[in-house]
Structures are given as structure tokens and as C-alpha cells.
């Protein structure tokens, strides 16, 4: 039915628009205040990668204190001011600032903007055959709000008293009585929340309204499904944090008592204020966001891994429908598991029973997704290029992260493991060797589409091998420490006798973290080198089937010369009696 409609637009129309808008725009409009989803995607990507590096730098600094508490930091210790590291020895103030900002930056300024802002923006419109996002101007605003939010967060390092130091969770009353850095944190978060609000509205409308003719929901690539559900999580889970941030700002600036109970005594001084508030209220509002946020971190990663596995096994995904259903189910369930972060706040028995049951239930679709992705390998012809290596490594790493969630999700075993390094190990396995590996896979996979050049395979494999080794080196010891009862967020863990025996593991973790830092050098070099000198490739170097590979490389403003028509599902690989082992979604011929 729609074939004629497509022809109505015609190649000429698309080409004209490309000609008149793609090249004639002045530099600042084309690359700075761009409304092209691909440029915005790359802006997001570069900014987020810088923040990831910065956030990683913060923790590499912290790891010195974990490993050698109270000793001066070698080489760079002298570069810091006396407010932070007098004589190169890190002060607790600075340590807790690094901790709070490492969490905030990695989650809100690094991974989510890279997974959703960059890959979502760049790939989703291409994969559904759309010329752009539904609201290009909003898309641009979304990026710039993110940018401003990031700048506010960075600026807070330089104010007197330093940045936020109450952890990325900012639990009141501690965060309310903290210094001005916390105000910056809250304002920065407000920008980031509004940025993600605009972004999520844009994704939902784009995916619902702008799919190419023939691109039914059953033919959507798995990545688009993952982004679609993610957008709903961002849309609906972030506003309560916005509300919470407003309340905490009121507590800090207007001296209200939303989170401040009556009769607080800090440093033997009775705290002024009306009292009558409830500190646990913040935890509910915060985790109502922050648990879906975990799935915001992981779902796009699963989407990327699905795309890359299908392409590099030359085989369709196993159980596409089960995958999609599981992702949707996870989306719903993620809104009713939040209080498993709060088992030890003294919540009622029924409530804690409810939340551990929902937590066990949400583990089932995750198991299904992991199983389906592994079974997708069966019967394939697996091509081990760099993106595939990262995608395949994602599976066991996410598996470890998921399994170790089990003893934390059961409230009885959580009594011992809560707030120990076990928790740190658990969620880092999910987001660091999990999500970040998937994001690396995505970079290697889509880099040829963005630049027209491939990244070096040799450097990529070096990057992969050492990243895999050292990621495990950083996080595996944390499980052992957590078992031994070593608590998280310790400026000097050796203060506790129970933490002393496992202190060598802290040293091991730290050395691994620094080596992991070194292992990123080949990637950084590869990334910039390949932009200019990488091997030139044609528009579909991986012989993939999804629509982004049928667009010109790099795709012009407006994406497709002819609006594509979709004839089949997303992963039509190795079809018997077909001339190639891949059959693009928009290719007409029927044999």
C-alpha cells in the first residue's frame, strides 16, 4: 500500500534537502548547535566519553587511598591544593567528594548519555528508516541541557568547600547539612533530569510515529525495542527524583524540613527548623528513580549486544519475541522493586517481603534475555572481530553481576552483605564490564557508519584483552572483601580489624584499576587515529541487515536518499538459496 507513498517523496526531494541544508549551514549550526540527530549523537558521544574518562580518573585517584591509606599520592599528589591533598595525602573531604562525583558522573553524565544520548540518537532514526528525530530542536536542547548540567557538576569542584560529598545517593540529613557543593549537585541534576525528559519524549514519538513503511513493531531491531522501553523508564522514573531534588533544595535553601525530623542535634547543637520531616522519604523518591535507572543503564547495552551478536553470528536472534517481551516486562517490573535498596531501614515485614518477591521476579526476564542471547550463538558462524569480542564478553560479565544480585535481593542474606564491597562488586559487574563493554562494542561496531573508516582490529583486540583481564582484577576481589564484611565508602578501611586481612585485595584491585586505565590508551589512540587514517570502508562493512547500513556513509542530513521500504524482519541472515548470507530489511527482491 505504501510503496507509492514512498515514491511520492522520491530521491530528488531527499537529495535537494540534503544539498540545501547539509552543506550550506555555517559551521556553528552544522556542528555546534546542530539539529541533525547524528551530529547530536556524536556530540553526546564525545562529551560522555570525556566524562567517563574523567569519572574513571576520579576513582583511580581514590584507589590510591583504598590501597595505601594515608600515604602521599606519588607523582601527581603534589599537583593538588592544600584543601584537597596537603602534602599529597588525600583528606577525607576530598575522598568523599571523589566518591560522590565518581558515582554521579559515571551514571548520569557518562553511561546514560553514551548509551541513550549517543547510540540512541545516532542509531534509532537510522534503524527505523526515519530522516531524523521527531523534534530536532528539542533534541538539540536536550544535548545542551545535558552539557550545562555537566558544567554545573564540574564547576562545583572549584567552589569553597568543594563539591558534593554525601555519596551519589545524597541521603539526607547528611546531604542537607552538607556544604554548598550539594546545592550545585542538585541544580546540576535538575538540568540532567530535564535533558533526559526532552530526550525520552523525542525517542518515544520518533519510534511510534516515524517508522518507515513496512517497519512494523515486530520488525523493529532489538536495539530499538531496548531504547523504546528505556525511554519510558526515563520519562516516568526521573520526575520523582526531580520532585525529591526540589524538596531537598527547599530544605537546603529555604530551611524547610521535608527530610529533617524533629530534634536533630548536630555537633551538640540543636538544629534550627520546624522538624517533622522524614529522611526515609528521600530514599523512596531516590530509589524510585534509581532502580529503573539501573535498567536504563543495562537495556540499551543488551540492545547493542543483540545487534552485534546477530550480525556476527550470521544468524537471527534466538527468541526475538521472548527478548522483546522480557524487555517490556523488565520495564514494568523495574518500577516496583526499588525498596530492596532499603531493607535495613526498618521497613515493615510485609513491605520487605513484597519487594524481595518482586526482585526475584524481575530476575527471571533477565535470565531469559541472557539465555536467548547465548543460544543465539548456537548454530552460527561466529566472526570474532573486536565488537563481537566485547559483545560476547558482556554475557558472562553481566551474568556474574546478575547472579551476585541474588544474595543482595534476599533480605536475610542482605543483612550481612548490605553496604559492603560485595554490593560495589555486584553493580560494577553489571555496569562496568557489563554495560561499558557493550558500549565499547557499539563504538567499534558503528564507528564505520559514523566516519566511513574502520577502527584498527589489532589495537581493538589489545584493548579488549587487557580490559577484560583488569576489569575482573578490579571487581572480583570486592566479592571476597564483601564476604569478610568490609564496608563500602571507607576512607581508611584498615581502621577496622575485620578489614585488615583482605587489605592486600584492595591493593590488587587498585593496581588492576590503574592497569585498566593504561589499557584504555590503545582505545583512545585507535579512536582518533582511525577517524583520520583508519581503513576506508563501504557503507555496509559488516554485511548487516538493519537499515542504518543501507544509508550512505556517513549518512547525510536527512539520512536516506530514498525513504526506505521495509520488507522483512531485522535479522535475515544466512537465508537458504539467497545470493548473500545477509538480506537487508529494505531489499526488494524476493528470491
Amino acid at each position: 500500500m505504501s510503496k507509492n507513498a514512498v515514491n511520492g517523496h522520491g530521491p530528488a526531494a531527499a537529495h535537494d534537502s540534503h544539498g540545501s541544508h547539509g552543506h550550506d549551514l555555517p559551521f556553528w549550526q552544522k556542528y555546534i548547535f546542530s539539529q541533525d540527530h547524528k551530529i547530536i549523537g556524536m556530540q553526546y558521544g564525545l562529551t560522555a566519553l570525556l566524562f567517563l574518562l574523567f569519572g574513571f580518573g576520579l576513582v583511580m585517584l581514590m584507589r590510591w587511598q583504598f590501597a595505601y591509606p594515608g600515604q602521599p599520592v606519588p607523582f601527581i599528589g603534589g599537583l593538588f591544593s592544600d584543601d584537597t591533598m596537603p602534602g599529597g595525602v588525600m583528606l577525607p573531604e576530598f575522598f568523599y567528594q571523589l566518591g560522590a562525583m565518581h558515582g554521579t558522573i559515571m551514571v548520569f553524565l557518562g553511561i546514560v548519555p553514551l548509551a541513550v544520548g549517543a547510540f540512541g540518537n545516532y542509531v534509532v532514526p537510522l534503524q527505523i528508516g526515519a530522516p531524523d528525530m521527531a523534534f530536532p530542536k528539542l533534541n538539540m536542547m536536550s544535548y545542551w541541557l545535558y552539557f550545562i548540567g555537566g558544567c554545573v557538576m564540574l564547576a562545583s569542584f572549584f567552589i569553597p568547600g568543594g563539591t558534593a560529598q554525601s555519596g551519589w545517593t545524597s541521603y539526607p540529613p547528611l546531604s542537607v547539612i552538607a556544604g554548598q557543593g550539594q546545592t550545585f549537585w542538585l541544580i546540576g541534576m535538575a538540568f540532567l533530569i530535564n535533558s533526559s525528559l526532552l530526550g525520552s519524549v523525542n525517542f518515544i514519538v520518533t519510534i511510534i510515529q516515524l517508522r518507515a513503511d513496512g517497519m512494523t513493531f515486530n520488525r523493529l531491531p532489538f536495539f530499538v525495542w531496548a531504547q523504546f522501553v528505556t525511554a519510558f523508564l526515563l520519562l516516568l522514573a526521573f520526575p520523582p527524583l526531580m520532585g525529591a531534588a526540589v524538596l531537598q533544595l527547599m530544605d537546603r535553601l529555604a530551611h524547610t524540613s521535608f527530610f529533617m525530623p524533629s530534634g536533630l542535634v548536630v555537633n551538640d547543637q540543636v538544629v534550627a527548623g520546624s522538624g517533622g520531616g522524614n529522611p526515609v522519604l528521600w530514599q523512596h523518591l531516590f530509589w524510585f528513580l534509581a532502580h529503573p535507572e539501573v535498567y536504563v543503564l543495562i537495556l540499551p547495552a543488551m540492545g547493542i549486544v543483540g545487534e552485534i551478536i546477530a550480525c556476527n553470528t550470521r544468524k537471527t536472534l534466538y527468541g526475538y519475541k521472548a527478548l522483546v517481551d522480557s524487555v517490556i516486562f523488565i520495564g514494568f517490573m523495574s518500577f516496583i522493586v526499588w525498596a530492596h535498596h532499603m531493607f535495613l531501614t526498618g521497613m515493615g515485614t510485609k513491605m520487605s517481603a513484597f519487594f524481595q518477591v518482586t526482585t526475584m521476579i524481575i530476575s527471571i526476564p533477565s535470565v531469559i534475555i541472557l539465555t536467548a542471547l547465548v543460544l543465539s550463538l548456537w548454530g552460527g558462524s561466529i566472526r570474532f572481530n573486536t565488537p563481537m569480542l566485547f559483545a560476547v564478553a558482556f554475557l558472562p560479565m553481566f551474568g556474574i553481576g546478575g547472579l551476585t544480585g541474588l544474595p543482595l535481593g534476599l533480605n536475610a542474606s542482605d543483612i550481612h552483605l548490605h553496604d559492603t564491597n560485595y554490593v560495589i562488586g555486584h553493580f560494577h559487574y553489571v555496569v562496568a564490564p557489563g554495560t561499558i563493554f557493550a558500549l565499547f562494542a557499539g563504538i567499534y561496531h558503528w564507528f564505520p557508519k559514523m566516519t566511513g573508516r574502520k577502527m584498527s582490529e589489532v589495537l581493538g583486540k589489545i584493548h579488549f584483552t587487557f580490559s577484560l583481564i583488569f576489569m575482573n582484577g578490579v571487581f572480583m576481589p570486592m566479592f571476597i572483601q564483601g564476604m569478610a564484611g568490609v564496608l563500602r565508602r571507607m576512607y581508611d578501611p584498615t581502621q577496622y580489624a575485620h578489614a585488615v586481612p583482605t587489605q592486600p585485595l584492595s591493593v590488587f584491585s587498585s593496581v588492576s584499576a590503574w592497569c585498566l586505565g593504561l589499557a584504555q590508551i590503545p582505545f583512545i589512540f585507535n579512536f582518533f587515529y582511525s577517524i583520520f587514517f583508519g581503513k576506508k570502508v563501504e557503507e555496509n562493512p559488516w554485511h548487516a541487515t538493519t537499515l542504518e547500513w543501507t544509508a550512505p556513509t556517513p549518512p547525510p542530513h536527512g539520512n536516506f536518499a530514498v525513504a526506505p521500504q521495509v520488507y522483512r524482519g531485522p535479522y535475515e541472515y544466512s537465508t537458504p538459496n539467497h545470493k548473500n548470507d545477509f538480506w537487508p530489511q529494505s531489499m526488494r527482491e524476493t528470491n
Partner: protein
Amino acid sequence: MESLIKHISKPHPVTGVTNAKLGTWCFLASEIMLFGALFSSYVLLRVGAGTAWPRGSDILNVPLATLNTLVLITSSVTMVMACASLALKNLGKYRLYMGATILLAFVFLVVKSFEYGHKFEHHHFPSTSTFYAIYFTLTGLHGLHVIGGIVVNTYLLFPGSALWKKDPDQFMGRVEAAGLYWHFVDLVWIFLFPVLYLL
């Protein structure tokens, strides 16, 4: 370029809505979560306070708030009339009703600022009690939404209406989206009024 993006002025054949309308609904869903979270906070704080929680009608100005409720409801009606006038291709009447909507929004804010001023005179600040804290926060946030509505509506009344000549469908879509938002702002107040002033 923009012309390549479909469903800007004409609805999608399957979903039956334009991009702008779907986007507005999504935005409103997010707003519901925001106010929902704040209302839940209100409930939790109030339950926690027990009998110490004052009755809104004892300390707040109910007649003024009732007046404000009527003002906002009327402005919702004029907003509907503005949309209807566009459907009848009557730009003049549209301007009249849109102007009335903006004016009523200003009346609401003026009345509200009298209420605030009165409270401040009696040294009732957000820090006075948790009741005043939530009262000022919720009404303040609602007030910001009203100001946002005024900005959008003023844009659509003056510079934005140039689009009427170029693409009447798209312009109508924008006015409808602004209308949806405005009704939402109205609806929030209709929840706020009994929760804060009466219960």
C-alpha cells in the same frame, strides 16, 4: 529538512495523532509522575505528623483560593474556545480568547501573590512548619507551571501565529498541544485546592 519529517501537521494514519500531540501526552505523563511523587510525599509527611498537622481551611485563605479556582477553570474554557475558533478558521476570535486565557492566568498569579504576601506578613514561611513547606513548594511549583503556560500562550498569540498562514494544521496542532498543557495545569490546581486548603 523539517519537511522530510512526517506527521508534523497531519496525524499518523495508525496512531491518529501528530508528533506534537503525542509528545505533549508523553510530557504530561512525566508531569503526572512529578506531581504524583510530590502528592505522595505530602501524604507520607501528613500521616507521619498525625494530629500535629493543621487543617488547611484554618490557616489558609479559602475564599481567595476558590476565586482562583474559578479563574483557572474559566481560563481553561477560554482556551477551548481559542482552539475552537481556529477550527472555524477565525484568527481574530482566536486572538481574543487566547488573550483572555493569558489575562486570566495573570489574574491567578496576582491573587496568588496576594496570598503569599499575606502569609509573609504574618511571618509564615516555608520553614515555619512542614505544612507551610509543602504548601509553598506545591503552589510555587504550580505557579511556575502557570508562568510556563503564559510564556507558551503569549508566543502562540503573537509571533507564533505567523505559522497560521503557512501551515494552519501545524499551527492548530501547536495550539491544541498548548491547550492540553493548560488543562493539565488547571487539573493540578483542582487537586491542590482541596488537598491543601480544605482537607
